């Protein structure tokens, strides 16, 4: 496998045989015990942190090339979060790695019990194109801190970032245990044929199913970070200026809406809609100027396929008439302006597929309760948002809406809190990560019960007799006397 510096998958070559060789090599590295020590894991994390520090401008340049991502977003949403993940893991690692002692019961007296975290082994991380740096490095950080060997398959739809990983990451980490495979469907398929100890996939539900089906062959556990239509319910009891700003930055300030947790659509009451639309329009102009297609603060659409997909959504004749703001596009530069739509038909594609772009439909209902029912009639999203000052509505929302995660009175921020699990439910995914959840998602929690040769309870051994059963019954019911009798060897043979 050469130096292992980069496994160039493009073009001919990276097939099932090469993938198998790659995995075999990693299995040998893992079996050597190399990844198990705290020092090795810390060294990997420190290496990644150093890479982020030393190569910040290169990373920003790659993200700009792939997505025209504004530097501020590259810093806020990818670089700083990746660095924070390293720092947090370095700080907490020893604690996470420590076995957890648990209580023992009378029936196994005397004994000691603990739960030990061990790495799963050789894991596969498949990343996405929209936060191509973060969504590659953060799961890899989790895999490494848990002591696994990793293969990273960055998204080919973000080629500059993919290339960055292939070229630069090997300089900062242990190449015998971390490999990068660039490529697209053929390479991914070759990888998915192999037996992994865990697969961590970020992307869409269609490919998520393909990944899970491949995993089923080897009974490989999976974490799937998928998407969905993240609803934003806006009540009238809000500070509408603040709400509008937070929604706008959470939508268009997040890769121009191309984010799994970006607000997908707004629900509000018929009476409040005009106020909200007004506030949103004003905020959009303040943020992006009169000609948003010229703003340097908006990512472009990632490629022409997605551009066509998106324009198709709003050019639908039942939809185009509902545009109340925006709709401009520049095909040459793959730019689409922030677009608001009001009272889009519920059966339109725009209201049924994950938008993943700069369109924000607003649907209106008579009551907030109707909004909640509408949300619950759809698949469970990765995130659900609510803007309200009303505690009762907040409580009802948290209680009755199921989503991966929720944020009240803001958007997207919950993913920055390493104490909160980040993941989906139902169609939006399986498993979670961030912080300790990253460590856990790449670990097996092994139960270990340890006894000595004392504490023999003859009552448990055949031949079974009624007297023995009585003592056992007592023991089970927590009777200390029964325990004593059992241990003292009653009934006598």
């Amino acid at each position: 496998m050469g130096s292992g510096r980069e496994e160039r998958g493009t073009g001919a070559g990276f097939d099932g045989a090469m993938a198998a060789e790659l995995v075999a090599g990693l299995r040998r590295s893992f079996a050597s015990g190399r990844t198990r020590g705290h020092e090795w894991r810390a060294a990997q994390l420190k290496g990644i942190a150093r890479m982020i520090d030393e190569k910040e401008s290169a990373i920003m340049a790659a993200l700009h090339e792939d997505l025209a991502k504004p530097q501020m977003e590259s810093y806020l949403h990818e670089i700083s979060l990746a660095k924070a993940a390293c720092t947090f893991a370095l700080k907490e690692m020893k604690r996470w790695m420590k076995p957890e002692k648990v209580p023992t019961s009378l029936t196994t007296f005397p004994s000691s019990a603990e739960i030990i975290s061990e790495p799963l082994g050789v894991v596969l991380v498949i990343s996405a194109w929209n936060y191509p740096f973060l969504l590659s490095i953060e799961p890899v950080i989790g895999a490494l801190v848990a002591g696994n060997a990793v293969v990273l398959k960055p998204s080919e739809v973000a080629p500059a970032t993919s290339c960055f990983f292939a070229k630069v990451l090997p300089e900062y980490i242990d190449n015998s245990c971390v490999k990068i495979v660039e490529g697209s469907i053929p390479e991914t398929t070759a990888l998915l044929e192999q037996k992994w100890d865990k697969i961590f996939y970020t992307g869409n539900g269609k490919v998520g199913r393909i990944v899970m089906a491949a995993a089923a062959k080897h009974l490989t556990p999976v974490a799937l970070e998928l998407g969905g239509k993240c609803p934003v319910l806006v009540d009238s009891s809000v500070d509408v200026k603040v709400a509008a700003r937070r929604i706008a930055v959470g939508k268009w300030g997040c890769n121009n809406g191309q984010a799994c947790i970006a607000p997908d659509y707004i629900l509000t009451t018929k009476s409040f809609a005009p106020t909200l639309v007004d506030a949103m329009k004003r905020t959009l102009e303040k943020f992006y100027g009169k000609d948003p297609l010229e703003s340097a603060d908006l990512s472009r659409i990632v490629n022409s396929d997605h551009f066509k997909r998106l324009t198709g959504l709003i050019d639908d004749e039942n939809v185009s008439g509902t545009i109340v703001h925006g709709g401009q596009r520049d095909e040459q530069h793959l730019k689409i302006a922030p677009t608001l739509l009001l009272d889009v038909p519920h059966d339109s594609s725009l209201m049924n597929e994950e938008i993943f772009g700069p369109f924000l439909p607003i649907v209106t209902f008579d009551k907030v309760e109707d909004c909640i029912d509408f949300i619950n009639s759809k698949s469970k999203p990765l995130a659900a948002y609510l803007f309200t000052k009303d505690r009762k509505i907040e409580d009802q929302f948290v209680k009755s809406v199921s989503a991966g995660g929720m944020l009240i009175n803001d958007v997207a921020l919950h993913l920055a809190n390493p104490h909160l699990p980040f993941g989906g439910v139902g169609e939006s995914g399986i498993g979670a990560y961030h912080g300790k959840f990253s460590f856990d998602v790449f670990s097996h929690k092994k139960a270990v019960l340890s006894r000595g040769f004392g504490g023999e309870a003859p009552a448990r051994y055949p031949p079974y007799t009624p007297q023995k059963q009585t003592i056992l019954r007592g023991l089970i019911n927590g009777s200390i006397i029964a325990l004593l009798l059992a241990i003292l060897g009653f009934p006598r043979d």
Partner: protein
Amino acid sequence: MGKGFDGARAAEVVAELRETFRSGRTRSLRWRAAQLKALARMIDENEADIAAALYHDLAKPPTESLLHEISLAKEACLFALKKLKRWMKPQKVPTSITTFPSSAKIVPEPFGVVLVISAWNFPFLLSMDPVIGAIAAGNTVVLKPSEVATATSSFIAKNLPHYLDNSCIRVVEGSIPEASALLEQKWDKIFYTGSARVGRIVMAAAVKHLTPLVLELGGKCPVLVDSNVDIKVVAKRIVVGKWGCNSGQACIAPDYIITTKAFAPKLVDALKITLEKFYGKDPLGSKDLSRIVNSSHFTRLKNLLDEEKVSGTIVLGGQEDEKHLKIAPTLLLDVPSDASIMKEEIFGPLMPIITVDDLEHSFDVINSKPKPLAAYLFTKDHKLEKKFVKTVSAGGMLINDAILQFTNLHLPFGGVGESGMGSYHGRFSFDAFSHKKAVLSRGFSGEIPMRYPPYTPLKQKVLRGLITGNVLPLLLALVGWPGHRKSLVA
């Protein structure tokens, strides 16, 4: 429900349970506690019938029925009842300065409508235990007991509806057609106990709907026996862990023994003495041994023994009574590693003993095989124990005893690799059937203008300072120090 339970009927059942779940019925502590109390009552009031069903299905000795099924199921109910309020409580977590002011918590919520598919060897426990978890977590459940344990399946189908809320909990009896019809539906979680082969089928079905799974499978659970042991105690514990556990038909029963060449004769001797003490000179006549569950498993086990390179390695037992589906406890010594008995999960009363020069070297051998559900080691040597725990991967481990880890409700019970995914028991049951929803809550204050477009280098500096806690640049920017001139707000 026997004939006629097809896809349409299955869809109907799921739709009904979904409707009930949506009504919010299962969400309250009161409802969940009521179900658990009723289940505990069912166990108390029907103990004799449960034992009788288990005897019918497996000739399971009443002591084993009590120890391994009835008491564990009851304990699961009581433990959940005691802890439920705590488990249901949202867990507050710290927040960071970047979202100040805010509060954050993790809220457990039920997945919704779940499917539990049970196994035949501990047919009562392996049905009830996951159902207890599903109910504690607030789900509606369909339970599909194993058709191989007919009396227990029937008992459950008849009695559960009298104790539990039928609008939320259903029992579907049947075999492959019924299970297939169920697996076509969209579940919010599937919990399966059984073989790796069917585990793959279940997982493949779950893919269609991205349904998360727990798979409790099996494997070849190795028992390593060092020479530095109290051999009498070792022999007793191994024997009761193997043959005292449904005659070896248990996912965590010791499958095979590894010991040193030097120690093997002593161990074999001690096992022989113990076996005779427990089961008498004619074990086929002992009431304290389960029978083999059915004739196809009987034939499977018989074939394992009859294999040419194997039959000569029998050092004790080997007697069979096909009519009563009984096989005597059988020890085999130095079976070739390519024999079927050394490659498949035995799941019966046959115990191969493999000898090695050095016990530590066998760790690598174990690790080269699929990861088992449990691994056991008998030794007084703490260094060896430490190395074993560190090196060998298995669902769970027990030092100096067998199977008991199953009974500790503070330990997660589940496999890894081929032996499964996910775990349960105690709190882990509640977690297995819950979605942990992250909830971050803010007010409208705590506005940070720097996060909003238009983006400027100054804003970036300020945010950087805030995030990294490196405040000096931030302060300089705020006081308008040269090089940090622009205003903060666009």
